[in-house]
């Protein structure tokens, strides 16, 4: 089927998803459940990756700019900028696309092949809204918090690794993370995070919702959800960076 067909069907699904909820209180309680499942339960992997990546960024920066002409605080500065501008919002979102996206596609895909979505439709429930909207709301609400935690842990991991390995002095690193700090960069990162959360959830839900067949096809949908989410995130990252930073 053509790309245009999928794009059209994706937007039609979005229209259904944002249709009037049957009972707002039920949607809200599902949103809270999804925040726990998709957000809080991703905290461990986000924390681990952020701390280690921050550490690696610090050590690599130092080894690549080891020159008497470059001031010592540049290591902290580079770690902060890399973490806030790109690593936390983009790389962590790509990783969440793998974890959360495959989860969403597999869950909704399984419901499709087990006729549970048909059961919702026959009851008169807006199945797209009931299943997808709470996930969109949950990830768009919780992911900015995950990314802020990631930013903190990335920089903290960089400081810890830098100081413990002796590649940077603590005061220089702290001076570096303060120099030229623009709060707008955090806003830019959070805007990207929210957009990426929407992309991950809707593309993965689309793949799951239109699954046909059995368990093998559910697996294929999960894989596609991750691949397509990643590709769209990369394009969106470029567009948003040009739009918000240039």
């Amino acid at each position, binding site marked *: 089927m053509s790309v245009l067909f999928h794009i059209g069907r994706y937007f039609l699904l979005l229209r259904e998803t944002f249709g009037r909820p049957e009972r707002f209180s*039920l949607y809200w309680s599902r949103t809270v459940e999804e925040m726990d499942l998709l957000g809080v339960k991703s905290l461990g992997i986000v924390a681990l990756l952020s701390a280690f990546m921050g550490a690696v960024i610090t050590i690599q920066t130092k080894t690549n700019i080891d020159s008497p002409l470059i001031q010592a605080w540049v290591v902290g500065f580079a770690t902060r900028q890399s973490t806030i501008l790109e690593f936390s919002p983009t790389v962590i979102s790509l990783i969440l696309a793998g974890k959360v996206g495959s989860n969403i596609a597999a869950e909704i895909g399984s419901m499709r092949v*087990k*006729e549970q979505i*048909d059961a919702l439709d026959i*009851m*008169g429930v807006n199945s797209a809204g009931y299943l997808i909207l709470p996930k969109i709301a949950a990830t768009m609400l919780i992911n900015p918090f995950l990314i802020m935690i990631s930013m903190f842990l990335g920089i903290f991991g960089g400081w810890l690794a830098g100081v413990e390995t002796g590649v940077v002095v603590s005061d220089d690193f702290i001076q570096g993370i303060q120099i030229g700090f623009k709060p707008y960069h955090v806003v830019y990162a959070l805007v990207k995070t929210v957009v990426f959360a929407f992309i991950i959830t809707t593309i993965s839900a689309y793949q799951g919702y239109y699954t046909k067949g059995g368990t093998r096809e559910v697996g294929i949908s999960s894989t596609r959800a991750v691949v397509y989410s990643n590709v769209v995130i990369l394009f969106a990252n470029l567009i948003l960076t040009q739009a918000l930073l240039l």
Partner: protein
Amino acid sequence: MITVEGLGKSFGDVRILEGIDAVFRKGSVNQIIGRSGSGKSVLAKCMVGLHRPEEGRVLYEGHSFHDMNAEEKRSIRQRIGMLFQGSALFDSLSVIENVMFPLRMFGAMGKEEMRERANTCLKRVRIIDKDHHFPAELSGGMQKRVGIARAIAMNPEYLFCDEPNSGLDPQTAIVIDELIKELTEEFNTTTIVITHDMNSVMETGEHIIFIHKGRKWWEGTRDELLRSDNKELNEFVFASSLMRQVKKAMIGGA
């Protein structure tokens, strides 16, 4: 009462249903029978609005379902209960939550009242002390019964059962058949059962439609079925030696 007029449905170039006309009566168990792939499930899915037919109409009490607006369709759907072949219970919800689900979505009841109604439905299908079990912890027969409890929770006017006996042992299958018959009489529903289980046809069939190659090939009662000389119907119904013996015993035929 549900009326189907000239229903036709294709998937791509493959013609699935052709010119189906039928009337499904209130207060009786209407059965759609046919071989696997004959189009009977597609017919049921067209009737409940999961598929849109290219030709023909499905009338609920004289009103064409596919010509209704979204709100009217939703209203009809809330009067439909459906038991799926695989039960289609929500895995993440307990037994009681599954039965309460349509009540929570559309009912105007308080939480206690909903729980009471769900318990009544579960007792009606003889599921006791399993409220907090999850579907995966139940046997196939129990899952079917919970599926029936969920289907009747909103007091439906129309009850659809897609292969209610598939994957069940003969004793459990009879329990499910009897339950469907009892509920049809009790709630005066228009019940449509899609099946290829001949025991079920013999147990509960009141009005039977035989679908063959996407067309309505034959229609009648159980007694008429036993006496029919329709070649394709006889090949399907009396494929097993057991059914041939039943026919012989009941009407003395070959």
